[in-house]
């Protein structure tokens, strides 16, 4: 009803609360209500910003390894990051060296020293769920110091440092003396992209990895295949994409593409977890792999359509074995997502061969069990851990204790109950239900994403600790390269803060002010992050 009233009375459809609240704020000068935390996003755990400010110039400022650092010039991950953040802060300036002999001013900050404190910097490793992402940042003269046990924390610290920079009224880059001590609240902070409903060109995936790093996300959940298309080019089974992709050459991810994504992500401290969802959501698999899917029957004859993967043929498990062996070598992460959601039993029920195996009792969830159980065994032999959607747990399948249960269903009450159930059974879990970002609506829906908290459910402290984080999901039915980036950002940034910052960081007005500036920073870095409300950025998006 309120919608109709608004539609009738407000031509430009402001929401009432916005008219009274945010609209007023956004019309006043931007600095009038700047957060005391500036444009920091997500908010670090501990921040102290003083009034003392220093200038930085592109010609004299450097990011260097601290002498004591366990990572030296050979750590290309860090060298790469230094250059990236230098360019974010000063633009890809060509003025370098112009005024080398210029004397630096008395309150000029000329150096950020990066100090990896633990003997093993993990520079050449892949990040994992147990990676130490903490860092400490001290901005002061004579130089700023970024201390982190591992390179992963250093990456986050560099992002934070770049967020402390602002322009004074003369346009000079400045930074205030600051002390920050920071670490993530949750270890698993992910974004799901779906490259099956629509193919996503590599360029789009890389741009979003870049943006994820700006928001301290650390998991790219790559929902790479599904019913609609199979763009993953498998070395072992090339016919899967040959037949199952939208186009066998232009709409596939070659091994080189996948490698590039994984390395690009690693350099930003992001894990890549691939999802190969079975036994449902596999229509596209059937095109290139004969006898993999269950033939559906109408009456006593095959209807010509196919259902989920055929769980009763030995060939199915031979295939799965070889396929997941390949996946385990291509994707270095310790986890693989096995899906297991939304299995439609009608086709299995219609198939007489499956009915026979069921010894007359038609209890099809059990078919699903046996398939999943065998699949889990197969994946276990590849030394991978697995993530699965909540249905597998709901159906009572026996799972390894280190299985991650991915909660995605229901309303708030239902998902909170599910989190309670999963954790009381001792499993680790992560939450996606409130963060289905593909579902769009008019207005500032980021408020809802911001308010959801994965630990808000009835349970003991022990149970709460089993929540390892969450994922924002951007399912692909209505999303491709044309609209993905503005639909994801800055809405996903709201999730980023919930997963990184302390639980009590909940002031929505302060968040609005910081997020507005953060989105302008993303725009300035070339990311078309959409606006939160009527406003402007000093430098608008130019990539039209």
């Amino acid at each position: 009803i309120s919608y109709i009233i608004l539609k009738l009375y407000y031509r430009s459809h402001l929401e009432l609360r916005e008219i009274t609240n945010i609209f007023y704020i956004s019309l006043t000068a931007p600095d009038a209500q700047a957060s005391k935390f500036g444009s920091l996003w997500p908010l670090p755990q501990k921040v102290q910003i003083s009034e003392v400010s220093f200038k930085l110039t592109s010609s004299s400022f450097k990011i260097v390894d601290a002498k004591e650092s366990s990572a030296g010039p050979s750590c290309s991950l860090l060298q790469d990051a230094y250059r990236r953040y230098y360019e974010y802060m000063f633009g890809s300036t060509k003025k370098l060296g112009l005024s080398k002999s210029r004397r630096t001013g008395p309150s000029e900050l000329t150096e950020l020293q990066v100090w990896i404190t633990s003997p093993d910097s993990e520079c050449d490793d892949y990040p994992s769920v147990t990676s130490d992402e903490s860092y400490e940042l001290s901005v002061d003269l004579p130089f700023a110091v970024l201390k982190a046990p591992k390179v992963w924390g250093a990456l986050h610290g560099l992002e934070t440092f770049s967020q402390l920079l602002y322009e004074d009224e003369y346009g000079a880059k400045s930074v205030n003396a600051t002390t920050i001590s920071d670490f993530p609240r949750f270890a698993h902070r992910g974004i799901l992209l779906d490259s099956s409903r629509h193919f996503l060109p590599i360029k789009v995936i890389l741009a979003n990895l870049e943006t994820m790093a700006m928001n301290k996300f650390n998991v790219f959940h790559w929902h790479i295949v599904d019913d609609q298309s199979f763009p993953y080019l498998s070395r072992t089974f090339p016919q899967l994409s040959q037949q199952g992709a939208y186009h066998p050459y232009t709409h596939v991810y070659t091994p080189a593409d996948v490698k590039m994504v994984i390395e690009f992500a690693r350099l930003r401290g992001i894990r890549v977890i691939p999802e190969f969802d079975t036994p449902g959501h596999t229509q596209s698999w059937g095109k290139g792999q004969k006898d993999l899917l269950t033939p559906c029957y109408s009456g006593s004859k095959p209807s010509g359509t196919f259902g989920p993967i055929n769980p009763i043929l030995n060939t199915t498990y031979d295939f799965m074995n070889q396929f997941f062996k390949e996946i385990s070598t291509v994707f270095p992460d310790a986890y693989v997502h096995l899906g297991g959601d939304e299995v439609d039993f009608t086709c299995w029920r219609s198939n007489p061969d499956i009915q026979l195996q069921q010894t007359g009792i038609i209890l099809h969830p059990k078919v699903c069990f046996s398939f999943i159980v065998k699949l889990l065994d197969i994946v276990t032999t590849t030394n991978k851990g697995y993530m699965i959607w909540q249905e597998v747990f709901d159906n009572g399948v026996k799972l390894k204790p280190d299985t991650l249960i991915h909660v995605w269903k229901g309303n708030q009450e239902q998902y909170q109950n599910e989190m309670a159930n999963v954790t009381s059974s001792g499993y680790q879990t992560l939450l996606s239900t409130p963060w289905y970002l593909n579902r769009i609506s008019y207005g500032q829906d980021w408020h809802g994403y911001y308010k959801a908290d994965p630990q808000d459910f009835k349970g003991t402290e022990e149970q709460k600790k089993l929540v390892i984080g969450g994922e924002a999901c951007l399912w692909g039915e209505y999303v491709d390269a044309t609209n993905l980036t503005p639909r994801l950002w800055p809405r996903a940034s709201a999730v980023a803060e919930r997963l990184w910052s302390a639980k009590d960081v909940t002031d929505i007005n302060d968040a609005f002010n910081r997020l507005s500036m953060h989105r302008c920073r993303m725009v300035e870095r070339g990311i078309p992050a959409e606006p939160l409300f009527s406003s402007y950025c000093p430098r608008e998006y130019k990539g039209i």
Partner: protein
Amino acid sequence: KKSRHSTLNHLSFEGVWPLPQAFTSSTERYPLNPQAFYFGYGKQSAAQQGCSVLDTAFKRYFSLIFPDYSSVDQWAFVDKPFLVEVSVDQDDCESYPQEDSSEKYNLSVCEGKASLKAETVWGAVRGLETFSQMVYQDDFGSYFVNKTEIEDFPRFQFRGILLDTSRHYLPVQAILKTLDAMAYSKFNVFHWHIVDDPSFPYQSSTFPDLSSKGAFHPMTHIYTQSDVRRVISYARLQGIRVLPEFDSPGHTKSWGKGQSDLLTPCYRGSTPSGTFGPVNPVLPSTYQFMEKLFKEVSSVFPDSYIHLGGDEVNFSCWKSNPDVRAFMQKMGFGADFTKLEAFYIENIVNITSALNKTSIVWQDVFDYHEKIPEDTVLHIWKGLPEVYQTELSRITKAGKRVLLAAPWYINHISYGQDWRNYYTVQPQNFSGTEEQKKLVIGGEVCMWGEYVDATNLNPRLWPRASAAAERLWSDEKQTSSVDSAFPRLQDFRCKLVRRGIQAEPLYVGHCKHEYQGV
């Protein structure tokens, strides 16, 4: 007149969006070779080489027709030439498109030649767009067009898109890109909601303080006079009118920053509260200012129409102000503030009439003020179908022309295929006589700017606005099925993507050439 051969793979006319009024097509197809493809003027044509509109259109459409055309070697075999011969009845090459400009065209494609005949260059531009959409490539990249006869004209004269450059500033480049995409869907009016409460980006030569104080930024977030001229001339070449809106007396907060005494000071009790309301309707200086401003606007914008806004006026500030109340007394308005608003609007309409401009106002004006000048157009923006249908009926009964926007508030997003709702609108489905129905001059897709700027404008606008474009151009009976529109619109959106427009997907699927940006 229509003959469908729905079993065929490539039907030229089915690839055309919006659907032409009448067409026959066959399977007979002719290869097109970019090396031997020419545009030319018919002998009888009133416009000949040197016609700015058509010369630039030839250039533009060559690249749109042959997107892969790059190297000369690739097309070494020059076989039979193909000529697109354009003939128009009037030499209106240097004019601006007007409300009554004919956009009718006939297109006949046969072996070696396409004849495009139109009354005006604007019709010819629409015909070129149609032709460009009929050309397709086979799997080997060769271009073809099928034998076709088309007779086409728009159902409605006014087919507009509103962009709001006040709530967010849109760089000129974003506006030009939108004009390109508008031409692809045969839209013909760019309604430029250029200023509003949040900012005043229009740089006035008479009142430069309006933008220097009222814009988000006085240097980077403004439209200079040359920006505006550029938009107008770019639009002209695509056969698009530019309709500026300077909305008053409400929606004017940003005006007040650069023009003191323009807005009504609001009072708390007997003292000014420091805040300001709508334009102050009681001061003579207000009308002097408006007269000067509209004089400038009238000369900058060549269209014979101007949008005066007039919506959502909040009376509480007027009520609080003792001078306003005294004025009400003096004028005998009693406590009826709609009379004051009517008084204001009447003055503004008289100003613009004296400048030879026809006014368009939001429907609110009619709601409180029925005796506005005969030729004023009412712009319907409120409510659900029952509500706007009643309003259409009521306003047309009073003999006023109307423009429908209510069902096409495209800034409103929701999950799923909302284009279906935009497609199934029936602008003339309200109770009224045939004469009344004729008073519906068209419709407009509105993209209000609260949540839209250059980062997300394009995918939010396209292809959703294209659904409305077909409703406004094509025959309603031939385009009554939303399900048969679906695959055509999917094809069309891939065409938009191929042309570099960031048009978002309608549903799962793919385009042969995906969008290559980020």
